[in-house]
């Protein structure tokens, strides 16, 4: 009796395991954010190159650890607002590319400033069946009040992706909307892309360690 049960289990288990893998639930949004944030934070605190402000190294970390979980297409589309539908696919691609680069430079700057910040996560509200959620966290630093840092994520076929970030109460997309629409009114989408590209060139040329303002 025991032996046949074992054989039974031995035959069935791998099958169930394989089926289980194929239908593995995508990582929950708050788990995802917690994991990625902690990884990046730990890296920023221990990696000597990052602490020294090595732009190259920071960009590597950002590309590897953060970019895969961000939906830049949606972010850019939201920031461009009503002008997005009137843009040609080439313009859209160009805009996504430049905005993405700008955000990477900005985020990299913030990472190089990390010293001994700690992260705290709020319990996530909302329905487990929601397709869009908000993950809320607090960054406590050595000086000043804790910084509110929230994320908006959407469920995509390839897992949850971030499409908006909130720092201290201000949503990134909302904050860029005004600037985007002003630039587009001045010189069209191409004008905006050009402005962003120029800004990105300037940021690339800047010395990585710019602690002096």
């Amino acid at each position, binding site marked *: 009796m025991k032996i046949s049960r074992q054989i039974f289990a031995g035959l069935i288990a791998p099958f169930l395991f394989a089926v289980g893998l194929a239908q593995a639930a995508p990582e929950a949004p708050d788990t995802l954010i917690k994991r990625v944030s902690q990884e990046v934070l730990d890296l920023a605190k221990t990696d000597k190159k990052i602490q020294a402000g090595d732009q190259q190294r920071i960009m590597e970390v950002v590309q590897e650890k953060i970019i895969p979980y961000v939906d830049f297409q949606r972010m850019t589309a*939201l920031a461009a607002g009503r002008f997005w539908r009137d843009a040609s696919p080439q313009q859209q691609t160009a805009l996504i590319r430049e905005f993405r680069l*700008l*955000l990477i*430079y*900005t985020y990299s*700057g*913030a990472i190089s*400033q990390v010293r001994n910040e700690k992260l705290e996560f709020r319990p996530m509200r909302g329905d487990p069946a929601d397709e*869009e959620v*908000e993950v809320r966290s607090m960054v406590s630093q*050595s*000086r*000043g*009040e804790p910084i*509110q840092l929230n994320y*908006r994520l959407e469920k995509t076929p390839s897992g949850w992706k971030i499409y*908006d970030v909130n720092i*201290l*109460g*201000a*949503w990134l997309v*909302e*904050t*860029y*909307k*005004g*600037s*985007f*629409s*002003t*630039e587009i*009114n*001045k010189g069209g989408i191409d004008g905006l892309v050009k*402005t*962003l590209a120029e*800004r990105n060139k300037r*940021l690339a040329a*800047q010395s990585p360690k*710019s*602690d*002096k*303002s």
Partner: protein
Amino acid sequence: MSYLLKPLRWCCVVFFMIFVSGCATVAPDASSDPRDPFEGYNRTMYSFNQVLDKGLIRPVATVYADYMPNFIQKAIGNFFSNIGDIWTAANNLLQGKPRESASDLARVLLNTTFGIAGLIDVGSHMGLDKHDEDFGQTLAVWGVKSGPYVVLPIFGSSTLRDSIAKPVDLNADPVGYIDSVRARNTAIGARLIDGRAALLPTTRMIDSAALDPYLFVRDAYLQRRASRIRDGAPDPDSKD
């Protein structure tokens, strides 16, 4: 009467002069934000503040941030933060939040005694979170709408309602009742520079990330202000 209110007359004069001249230079474009009907004046005042900041305040704050030992910076920050907690407690009460108000008073008590006159933030370590309230937020909770975006001389971003509330905040500021001119100016200066130093990473980020710093600051400020009035709760009206 608070010494801080005395220069208010001159501030109003400067404000008015720049307002009038700013109105004459409204940028003609199709994308005027309904929240910012005074954009012409606001941009002028913003530029004025930037000149003052880049020329004087930022350099001093940078030296302070770079050379003053961290623990002293922290102590100074805590000291002024503690003084501010009293007014925060009052506003929490006015907003109908007695628990937060009691927590703020407990913070003041703990920090002033165990925290040695506020130099150490014992309260936060004991789980009493710091709140951030002013009379403008109290008015908002009472139902007063924010009104248009207004940039004030030196104080920077504000709204019409908050600008009107500002004299009330100034009147409640204990620093304004220090009789010795020198001590008072030292306190004001120290608080200003410490506050500015704390914001240096933010302004550096704005310099690199913002396409139009004026718009960036305005839009971030208005969102943040609304968030502070809600005490960080999610926006019930936000749509995506």
